[in-house]
């Protein structure tokens, strides 16, 4: 997507954003359309015409991505679920004014990022204990290797949770949400130089923390 770096691997929602068809005029027959077969924009039109079930269908389609987004910011499943709920409640209110200038998925992602950033400003995440976050797939490569990788990932998440809010937000927006430095600067109200410096210090702090781990 926007990240040109070879080292910044997308973890995310590219594939999730695929498949949004062009908008069609759903207002004409919003009451009659088959919600499951409709594209996102048709669902939005149906919702704006008063069909609440259209929103339920949007939730079904996008809840996994929004939950994953929230989990990275919240650090545990319980808070991630609360945050995801908050995102969809905001989306419910915002969709009434949605003009379709971007894909519904992109718009929802932005709503989610805003909610998550608010949370960063309010609360430091409680990172889930390793046991809860770890799901060992016995059919996977090497179960022992999976355990080690899971422990490492949990330690990194815990370290990210301890970063100062601005460094954490910058890291998340850059690595997980794949925003450009310029976009991050606009969101966080700082300069591109400051964003890069925050990103640098976030990685440096993580390196220091991780060095102390076995």
């Amino acid at each position, binding site marked *: 997507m926007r990240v040109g770096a070879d080292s910044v691997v997308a973890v995310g929602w590219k594939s999730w954003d695929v498949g949004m068809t062009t908008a069609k005029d759903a207002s004409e027959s919003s009451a009659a359309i088959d919600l499951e077969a409709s594209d996102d924009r048709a669902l939005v039109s149906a919702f704006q015409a*008063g069909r609440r079930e259209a929103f339920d269908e949007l*939730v079904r389609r996008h809840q996994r991505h929004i*939950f*994953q987004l929230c989990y990275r910011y919240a650090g545990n499943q319980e808070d991630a679920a609360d945050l995801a709920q908050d995102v969809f409640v905001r989306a419910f209110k915002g969709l009434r004014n949605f003009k379709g200038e971007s894909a519904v998925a992109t718009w929802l992602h932005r709503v989610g990022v805003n909610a998550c950033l608010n949370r960063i400003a309010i609360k430091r995440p409680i990172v889930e204990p390793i046991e809860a976050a770890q799901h060992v797939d016995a059919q996977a490569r090497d179960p022992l290797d999976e355990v080690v990788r899971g422990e490492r990932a949990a330690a990194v998440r815990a370290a990210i949770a301890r970063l100062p809010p601005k460094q954490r937000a910058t890291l998340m927006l850059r690595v997980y949400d794949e925003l450009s430095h310029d976009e991050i600067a606009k969101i966080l109200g700082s300069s591109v130089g400051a964003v*890069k410096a925050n990103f640098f210090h976030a*990685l440096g702090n993580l*390196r220091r923390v991780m060095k102390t781990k076995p």
Partner: protein
Amino acid sequence: MTKHLSPAETIDALEGTLAADRAAHADACGTCGAQIEELRAVMRDVVEAGAVPEPSPLMWDVLQHRIRAATAAESPVLPLWRRSWKPAVALGAIAATALLAALLRTPAPPAPAPAIEPAVTVAAAVPVEEDYAWDLVVNLAANLSHDDVHDLAPSGVASAVLVENMTPREREALVKLIQREMGGLE
């Protein structure tokens, strides 16, 4: 030896967007090169840590139920006042603009007439009892009835309007005429 990479340049190096001359430094400098590699390793860890464990399959139904409950009191359709406030404001703005334009089009009141210098100072020069013209006016006026005076004299308003509507040249001519007339009395 050139300067080490700044934090921003280190990020550019990590993302492959560093300018060529600085990239040459990064390649040649052991300190900068080591730092970039360390941060690259941290970045890999961060990316890997972004994988989110799959929640219980029941969680999705629970989440949907919670969202439905939290939005139950809300309506998908905007209230009428929120839907119509923009057109109403637009109409108001158009009406205000039209009114302003109409006001600006009405002709401005005429500029105040240039002050006319007192043309005469005769009154001070000739005592009124010796003035035969005054004597004539008094005699004529004595023979006029009230109605005759009313019919003959232009109303104050009409004369004021006449004077106000005069062009500067007309005003100048009038002043000269009065001066001449007054001068003739001397």
